């Protein structure tokens, strides 16, 4: 018997894929109210009241050095210390998020830390926005309505041809579920083969997606693998819910692996997975943050003069 677990609906997977597809920068509030070190708690209180917000980052030359929340205001108020500078009451060592991270990382961060908001920074570590759960809800509603509209406008269009290459498909994978790891690759391989894609390319796609599937099963807390295929290229994206890779460069080094003996006894963990994906892909990108997750994107072009490989 196959596993009793029912396959989640493609539509619900599409919603999850949204979380992975959106970047934090597309979701965050860009207009941030921040204060500098020499401002007082009273200044912050005024800003909060006038703008209906509950958290204000403290910056020093655009770098986040702390955050003041409603709670800190209460504490200062209680002690009659509203004229103190913010540095005396703020919470230092703020957890920030990077603007180019996928939205899924932010959701993991909300689950992991008890904060209500995260300042968002750019590559130079400068404050560029702030993200709250409200932002996430609004973004999801916005995107879902957009998708719905698209689907409605597509409805009644030409019927899907069975030889069409266009396909968007999402698969969900669970930790240590080696039994099902590989099913997605098999299906996609079959799909491409039936449409007459050259064996060499089919194989590249199968190898990349298989390695990514196994990575999700062997190393992540679970996640999803999505395929976006058209006549030009095959885009494979893998997203997981953590634990994240501490040193991505090291993880890309052949022979390096964090696999335990059990994973090795399953024939994996040789430290070749990610290098293998990169080897067969025309484009490859990886992004990871500890405690939040890992995202890998591999693109294999269909229209190309294949470079020699052995």
């Amino acid at each position, binding site marked *: 018997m196959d596993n009793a677990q029912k396959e989640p609906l493609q539509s619900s997977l599409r919603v999850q894929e949204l979380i992975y597809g959106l970047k934090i920068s597309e979701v965050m509030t860009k207009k941030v109210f921040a204060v500098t070190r020499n401002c007082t708690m009273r200044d912050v209180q005024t800003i909060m009241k006038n703008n209906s917000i509950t958290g204000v980052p403290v910056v020093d030359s655009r770098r986040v050095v702390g955050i003041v929340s409603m709670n800190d205001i209460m504490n200062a108020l209680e002690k009659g210390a509203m004229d103190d500078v913010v540095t005396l009451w703020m919470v230092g060592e703020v957890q920030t998020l990077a603007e180019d991270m996928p939205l899924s990382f932010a959701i993991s961060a909300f689950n992991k830390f008890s904060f209500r908001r995260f300042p968002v920074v750019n590559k130079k570590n400068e404050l560029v926005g702030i993200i709250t759960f409200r932002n996430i809800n609004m973004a999801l509603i916005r995107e879902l309505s957009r998708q719905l509209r698209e689907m409605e406008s597509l409805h009644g269009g030409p019927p899907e041809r069975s030889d069409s290459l266009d396909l968007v498909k999402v698969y969900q994978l669970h930790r240590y579920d080696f039994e099902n790891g590989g099913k997605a690759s098999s299906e996609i391989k079959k799909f491409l083969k039936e449409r007459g894609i050259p064996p060499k390319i089919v194989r590249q796609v199968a190898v990349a997606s298989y390695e990514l599937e196994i990575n999700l099963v062997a190393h992540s807390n679970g996640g999803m693998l999505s395929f976006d295929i058209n006549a030009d290229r095959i885009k494979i994206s893998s997203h997981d819910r953590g634990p994240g890779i501490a040193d991505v460069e090291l993880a890309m080094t*052949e*022979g390096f*692996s964090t696999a335990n*003996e059990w994973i*090795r*006894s399953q*024939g994996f963990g*040789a430290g070749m997975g990610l290098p293998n994906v990169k080897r067969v892909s025309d484009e490859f990108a990886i992004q990871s943050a500890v405690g939040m997750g890992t995202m890998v994107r591999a693109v294999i072009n269909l229209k190309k003069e294949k470079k020699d490989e052995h």
Partner: protein
Amino acid sequence: MNISDIQSLAAFTCVQSEYNDAVVAGGYTSDLLSDVMAHAEEGSVLITIQAHKNTVAVASLVGLPAIIVCNNRPVLDDMIDAARAEGIAIFQTPDNQFQTSLLIAQHLAGCPAR
């Protein structure tokens, strides 16, 4: 054939040479350490691509005097250190496990490949 005879073969690069030279009793080809533990016979050389510290631990437990790492897989320092401590030789080869198994078998039989 001794371990030192393997060292003299062109196909192999010795990456851990502080070993106790011994007669090679046979070969065992595997990447699954539990399998090596269960089936490899003492005195065999282990032919594998599983290049890490635990391989040395298993080789030591079973009494395998040498490990041959195929496909030129990188051998990390901690593996070399562990092998040195146990007096186990480590060789690297660009050949795969099939080719290496044949080569070792031919030399064990006394009829080296041309």
